[in-house]
């Protein structure tokens, strides 16, 4: 079983990202489960969402405490909360950042770090505003490439189905991130 934890802020679409991830992988015949951190969500406050992936039916029904990978929608969270809590060694930390992975030298010792300028890609594709770019689809493109857990085409298909508007621009953002991720 592979467990993924997504960190974002209320309004950034972390929960939707966890569902798109689940749908993408479900399309490849695997079992999935995704859920938000059970709680009261508020705009701007740190938000966590989870996705489980397995080859057999998933019976486990509790939060994810030892994720295989984490996805960070907002780099400011790295300072605010312990984003690597329980993260397995050599797990991927995929960060929305225009910096090189080496910039995150405290993480790089224990984990594998990948960066992608999801905010820039989102703005280039007219997703959201400068103050609030919609990065939840782009970051999944980076996740897809880095982890190699599923195919880009499955992700693009899932984005088309699950995103309520601007599907093609979101798909483009996914593709851009897929090609631009640094790791």
């Amino acid at each position, binding site marked *: 079983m592979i467990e993924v934890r997504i960190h974002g802020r209320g309004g950034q679409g972390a929960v939707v990202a966890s569902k798109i991830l689940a749908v993408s992988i*479900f399309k490849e015949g695997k079992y999935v489960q995704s*859920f938000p951190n059970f709680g009261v969500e508020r705009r701007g406050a740190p938000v966590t969402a989870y996705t489980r992936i397995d080859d057999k039916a998933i019976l486990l*029904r509790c939060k994810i405490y030892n994720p295989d990978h984490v996805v960070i929608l907002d780099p400011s969270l790295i300072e605010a909360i312990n984003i690597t809590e329980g993260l397995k060694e050599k797990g991927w930390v995929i960060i929305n950042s225009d910096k090189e992975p080496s910039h995150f030298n405290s993480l790089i010792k224990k984990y594998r770090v990948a960066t992608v300028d999801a905010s820039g890609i989102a703005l280039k594709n007219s997703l959201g505003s400068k103050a609030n770019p919609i990065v939840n689809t782009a970051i999944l493109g980076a996740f897809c490439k880095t982890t190699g857990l599923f195919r880009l085409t499955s992700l693009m298909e899932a984005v088309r189905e699950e995103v309520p508007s601007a599907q093609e621009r979101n798909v483009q953002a996914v593709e851009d991130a897929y090609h631009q991720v640094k790791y």
Partner: protein
Amino acid sequence: MKKILMGNHAVSYGALLSRVEVIAAYPITPQTQVVEELSEMCAQGKLKARYINVESEHSAMAACIAAEQAGARTFTATSAHGLTLMHELLHWAAGGRLPIVMANINRSMAPGWSIWTDQNDSLSQRDTGWLQIYCESNQEVLDSIIQAYKIAEQILLPVMVILDAFVLSHTFEPVDIPKQELVDQFLPELDYPYKLDVKNPCSFGSLLPPEYYLELRYKVQKAMEEAHDVIIKVDKEFQQVFGRSYGGLVEEYRTEDAELVLVASSTVASTSRMVVDQLRDEGVKVGMIKMRFFRPFPTKEVTNILKQAKKVAVIDRNISYGQGGIFCEEIRSVLYNIDRQEKPPVFGYIAGLGGRDITPTTIREILSHTLKEDKPKENIIWIGVKH
């Protein structure tokens, strides 16, 4: 067709496929998406039902009672304080023998204010005459709504389909949405035999003097007893049509030759399966029974399975203050009349109240404790209390 659905939407799809005709509901966290989706289905014309907006859950149930009395298949959904606000009318629905189906998202009762899961809201409605189904997956939720109508309409008692807040209600997972034609084949149109008829006006729920009251209560109990076989039959029939079944009232998991039997319900049963597998791999003879139905209480099944065990561990995500875990107490109660030498010690664990996570570690801790002790030292064994 398989789709990634959240538990709440699995409820909505269950109601849609059951072709409910009247929905009266009031939104409450964590149930809201159930009724949002249903009102959307009504607005789009996908579901040809009358959606009644009401000002409280008490009114929601009142509207359901009236609609069902008029012969319509009705549905509502609620949670926690919404359910307890309905309390009076839950008696009315069951006493009036109205086959209403309701989804309840298990949420803890305040204060302190909580939106997270435990079973005290639904279990506090134990004596209202409603059947109660506790589900462990979104698939079971959807399927149980359909089964619930079939059961309710045969025995003329209402059914509550129950799922954990967030752990199911807000969790997305693959759900097979059955074809409408198959559901129609499985669940015929409702033909309620005691419906309102303007041509032959009768009064319903009117004064029932002591000469007759006892008899009608006797009949409610008889219907509950009759439900036992109906549930099993409906589940079997469901398997024939849809290829899925849930064991009727209880589901046994690796109980063959089990010396220790764990009793769990809802999503705790799901996680427990994993732990049972792990322990079996380690050579421990452990099994599990999932209490799918709490009402009617599966006395026969529970007795037959547990009398073969050396020890029983019950996980209750609920408590009856001044006594103990509610499932545990009922299990001890039904075991009381069996032969002394067959009676296993029953360990009662209370865990996970107010949404405290029940992880495989929690369950392992419970099982290890049970294996270690000869018999329970206390009526309640608390898990996770910070002392």
